[in-house]
């Protein structure tokens, strides 16, 4: 029983790590540009598929870096050509636009790579179990956790200490003031969008090695990411981090005792949080509400 629980908690943490990467990207974009990016899951899937296609040529490690960059570039192009036109408009329109993009992504992915799951091979040394007792602690899982930790740590350091990062944070609270200080808000938002998409692409590569590649793999992670943001508190990136891990573990634990409810439990958590603390665990009142 202890093994089972540990197994599922570790599963939950892995899933939570995906939620975190995905939700942090969503949060970045939502906070600075007020756009709920429905296509985020599509970008994630593309990240996985790009890596799948590139790996034979540039190896796993090359793909791990290049694929997210390519996805971010695509995100940048879409932001520059379409999404930026909707900033400041009713959120309805950016929602619908990214919703349409999500449709297109899923369909194109299916047309190019097929609807059935594709295996994505990771280097051998990463797949072996590290301990015979805890068979589920594979090197790949630890590796994944490490990559996510580095990415998240890097993101927070970047936002805290770099000039660009500080501007992104400041823009979250008061974009007008930031723009009157002479910051190029247009560039800031584009960069921020690409950064968010990069995280989705990275999550896609990692997910490819753990789950398997499917056109809908990103869309399936989208809703839990929303929940992570709401539970953690809209507007707060540390909140999103906390929310993602919490709901991952909660879903993992529920899978032990009542597998059928493991999808729904995170929504129950969200309801409880909204009832007891409407702004979310680490959210600030008044922001985006």
């Amino acid at each position, binding site marked *: 029983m202890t093994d089972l629980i540990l197994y599922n908690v570790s599963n939950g943490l892995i899933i939570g790590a995906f939620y975190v990467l995905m939700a942090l990207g969503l949060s970045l974009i*939502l906070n600075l540009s*007020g756009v*709920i990016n*429905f296509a985020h899951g599509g970008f994630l899937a593309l990240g996985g598929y790009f890596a799948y296609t590139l790996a034979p040529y540039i190896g796993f490690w090359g793909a791990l870096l290049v694929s997210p960059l390519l996805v971010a570039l695509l995100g940048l192009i879409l932001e520059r050509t*379409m999404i930026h*036109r*909707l900033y400041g*408009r*009713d*959120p*309805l*329109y950016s*929602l*619908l*636009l990214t*919703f*349409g*993009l*999500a*449709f*297109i992504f*899923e*369909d*194109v992915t299916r*047309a190019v790579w097929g609807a059935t799951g594709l295996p994505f091979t990771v280097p051998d040394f990463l797949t072996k179990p590290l301990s015979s007792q805890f068979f589920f602690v594979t090197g790949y899982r630890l590796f994944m956790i490490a990559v996510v930790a580095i990415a998240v740590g890097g993101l927070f350091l970047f936002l805290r200490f770099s000039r660009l990062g500080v501007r992104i944070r400041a823009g979250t609270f008061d974009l007008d003031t930031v723009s009157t200080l002479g910051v190029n808000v247009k560039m800031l938002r584009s960069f921020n969008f690409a950064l968010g998409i990069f995280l989705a692409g990275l999550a896609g590569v990692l997910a490819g090695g753990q789950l398997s590649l499917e056109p809908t793999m990103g869309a399936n992670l989208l*809703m839990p990411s*929303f*929940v992570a*943001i*709401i539970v953690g508190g*809209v507007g707060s990136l540390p909140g999103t981090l906390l929310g993602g891990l919490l709901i991952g573990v909660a879903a993992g634990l529920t899978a032990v005792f009542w597998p*059928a*409810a493991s*999808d*729904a439990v995170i*929504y*129950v958590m*969200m*309801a409880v949080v*909204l*009832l007891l603390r*409407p702004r979310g665990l680490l959210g600030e009142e008044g922001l*985006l*509400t």
Partner: protein
Amino acid sequence: MTPTIDRSKYVTLGVIWLLLLTMPYWLPMVGGYMALGTRVVIMGLAAMSLNFLLGFTGVLSFGHAAFFGLGAYGTGLALKYFTHSTPLALVLGVLLGGIAGAVLGALIVRRRGVYFAMVTIAFGQVFYFIAFRWNSLTGGDDGLRGFERQPIDFGVWQADILHRPILFYYFVLLLFAIGTGAMGFLLRSPFGRTLLAIRENERRARFLGVPIEQHIWLSFSLSCFFVALAGGMYALLNNFADPTMLNYTQSGEIVIMIVLGGIRSFWGPLIGAAIFVVLQDYLSSLTTNWMSFLGTIFVLMVLFFPRGVLGLNWTEMFRSVLGRSRQTRPQEGGNLS
């Protein structure tokens, strides 16, 4: 309201109802079939119901598919397990969707804008997962089967809506008339005007003495009841309900119908629904990649025609074609929050 506007309103109303009432007779001539027409009317009601909230209260719910789907499952389950009365099953479906909406609404009514949209999406998914996972009751991924709409007995005459699609169409149209009539009536009432007030300027409405949360909650709940009615009829149409009806993609489709038709227009969503349903039917028969086409339509719509087909200034376009022009008032369709 100037008399000319009123007159054009009556003309629009007359044309719409004439087309709807005679649909079974002209639809086959233009290549349609009865179930398609019925689907248009049902989705039209769904879109108009959501637009009661979105277009006339200014609140964006992106989770209405949940209540649409609950209406469908409620109706289907009632027919399968409790009753042979189609109307009673519908009532139960509507109650299920409507009450779920009212309870959820109470929980989220203080949220606004993007946040409200996100919370509605996420909560909507709860019901999706319930339908998806509760195999023994709902049939899970395969959907709910094993029920059929039952003939309605009027004593002297029995309306066999099961075997005569045309009768089912008129049954649907009758409920559509009741639903849209009720919404139209409410929007012209003092209560409806407070909703417009909230849409136009929430702060002003609050300081005129309107308790905003209470009114938004009422609007949300009403909208859920009507959308559940549409969902119930949808289940009757197909004698089937499946989990994707509750999914957020379904919500997105209802929202795009509204935007296609024109968000500020009462009847616009019906037209949007007609365009969407027919297009979807046509595209999916034509290509397996219809999702791309649909997605492209979303994108083009948002980028180039955010006011929908009724938001386009048709009169002005005709005038300019005829070489005459007149100053008309600007219509702002962009900002609802």
